[in-house]
């Protein structure tokens, strides 16, 4: 990876304050507003789960997904100014370009996760043993990979005008099918569809924090297949996208 190029891309990420703050603030604000007044356990559940813990892990996964997708907005803006064409006239290989985009996406996602964890700790959330934190965070990092690739894909497919609805709609769609806000039923059509959607497994990664088991093989396969498919599509979109926008 080209360290200088990546360094400046990370610097640009932080300096773009409005976008940086906005894509981080939404899940954090939801958490602070909803989990704040709702102490105690989730009602009507056989197992006792602390609501603030439940909401923290859910929003951490959801926020990481939004952060990953928001790379699309940055790429679309770069394309609209013609910068992408300029970049193609450098010896930077396609793989190098993607590595840097993935790195910045992950940086954004990790900041989002860290903010939610900090807010949770502030509200007194404790997850033990500590290895659960680690396992949950690790699975989240793997679980957002399809969304990182999806962000790069939409960035090269759509214009910056259509990016708001695309990211908003996309994250709502995947949030709903993945059971981010409402746990999906544990059988039936919605469950079967959900299991094929990467956000389902991202949510499952979150639930490790409230005592759920780790992914079964199916989870690894779904995340792997979506990652490969999205990365391949992103590569295709990048290669065809040489026109003046």
């Amino acid at each position, binding site marked *: 990876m*080209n360290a*200088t*190029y990546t360094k*400046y891309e990370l*610097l*640009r990420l932080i*300096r*773009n304050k409005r976008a940086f703050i906005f894509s981080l603030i939404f899940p954090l604000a939801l958490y602070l507003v909803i989990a704040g007044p709702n102490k105690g356990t989730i009602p009507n559940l056989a197992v006792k789960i602390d609501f603030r813990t439940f909401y923290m892990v859910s929003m951490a996964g959801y926020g990481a997904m939004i952060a990953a997708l928001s790379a699309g907005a940055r790429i679309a803006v*770069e394309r609209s*100014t*013609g*910068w992408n*064409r*300029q970049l*193609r*006239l*450098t*010896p*930077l*290989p396609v793989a190098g370009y993607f590595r840097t985009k993935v790195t910045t996406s992950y940086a954004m996602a990790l900041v989002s996760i860290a903010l939610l964890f900090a807010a949770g700790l502030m509200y007194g959330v404790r997850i033990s043993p500590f290895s659960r934190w680690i396992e949950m965070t690790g699975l989240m990092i793997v679980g957002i990979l399809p969304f990182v690739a999806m962000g790069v894909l939409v960035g090269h497919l759509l214009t910056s005008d259509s990016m708001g609805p695309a990211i908003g709609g996309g994250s709502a769609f995947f949030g709903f099918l993945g059971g981010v806000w409402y746990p999906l039923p544990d059988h039936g059509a919605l469950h079967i569809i959900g299991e094929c959607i990467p956000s389902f497994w991202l949510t499952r990664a979150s639930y490790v924090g409230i005592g759920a088991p780790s992914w079964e093989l199916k989870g690894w396969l779904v995340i792997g297949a979506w990652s490969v498919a999205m990365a391949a599509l992103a590569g295709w979109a990048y290669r065809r996208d*040489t*026109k*003046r926008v």
Partner: protein
Amino acid sequence: MGRSADAALLSHHEIGHAGLVQSTPTLLSRGAAGSAASISLIGLTKSFRSSAGPVRAVRGVDIEIAAGETVALLGPNGAGKSTTIDMLLGLSKPDAGEVHVFGMTPSEAVAHGAIGAMLQTGAVLDNLSVRELIDMMGSLYPYPLGVDETLELAGITDIGDRRTNKLSGGQTQRVRFAVAMVSNPDLLVLDEPTVAMDVESRHKFWESMRVFTGRGKTVLFATHYLEEADANADRIILMARGEVVADGAATEIKAATGGRQIRGTLPGADRDVLLALPGVRGAELRGDAITLNCGDSDAAVRALLQSYPAIRDLEITGAALEDAFLQLTASNEGAQS
């Protein structure tokens, strides 16, 4: 070489037929130098789909450029300059024809860092200082110039610490020029580099360019200003409607297209008398207003004032390039049909 030299002669023949460019010796010597060409475009064609049907943007362009030449690609909007440049840079694929850059395909040449380009559209990457941007771009190339050297060469040392989104139009253009130069390329391609520059920036820009070409680099720039091409290029390639319509030394092209226009108010003028004046090639009368197209406007205006001391509102302007192109292409078509 044989094929493209033939094609060059052929298109030259058409121009000669239209009575506009007489430059056979230059063309022949250029053909001979073709074997050492650093860039060759052979039979390039490119069409685009549009709502009004296919648009043939480039229709069989042959260009050879030797190492160290500074060449202007001159033509009005829609002449196919940018499309040709896109194909030269590998940003778009020709429908037919070949592109060789230092014996490589465009994408190979780009991967070797041999090409620096300043594209027509575009801002620069935001949220960086000028210095940071140049540093970042330099890091992508195998043999970059130093950041300080690049800033100095582009004449932007004073704005090095400014954010790229806080620059004027002219400053942005010079930063984009620096982006093209930091790669220390063997071939520098500039698509309408001075658009959005004021007179002073334009002057400074060409000054920096001359320092750069002084290092023996090959430069191709597109422009629709004849003066700019004349002042800064060794050779001008004239494009119109997707074709090369003339190719030669700047002075030749200038003579072919660079006539002047005299306008004035002259009641009761006689067209035949006006046409008979020295230096006048064409005359047009509309009411009391006359327009003379002149090869030698100095001689024409002297004679005009002598014959018609009563003439008012005299105005002498350089003939618009677009008009010259229209004439040029129209006479070509006339000669063919």
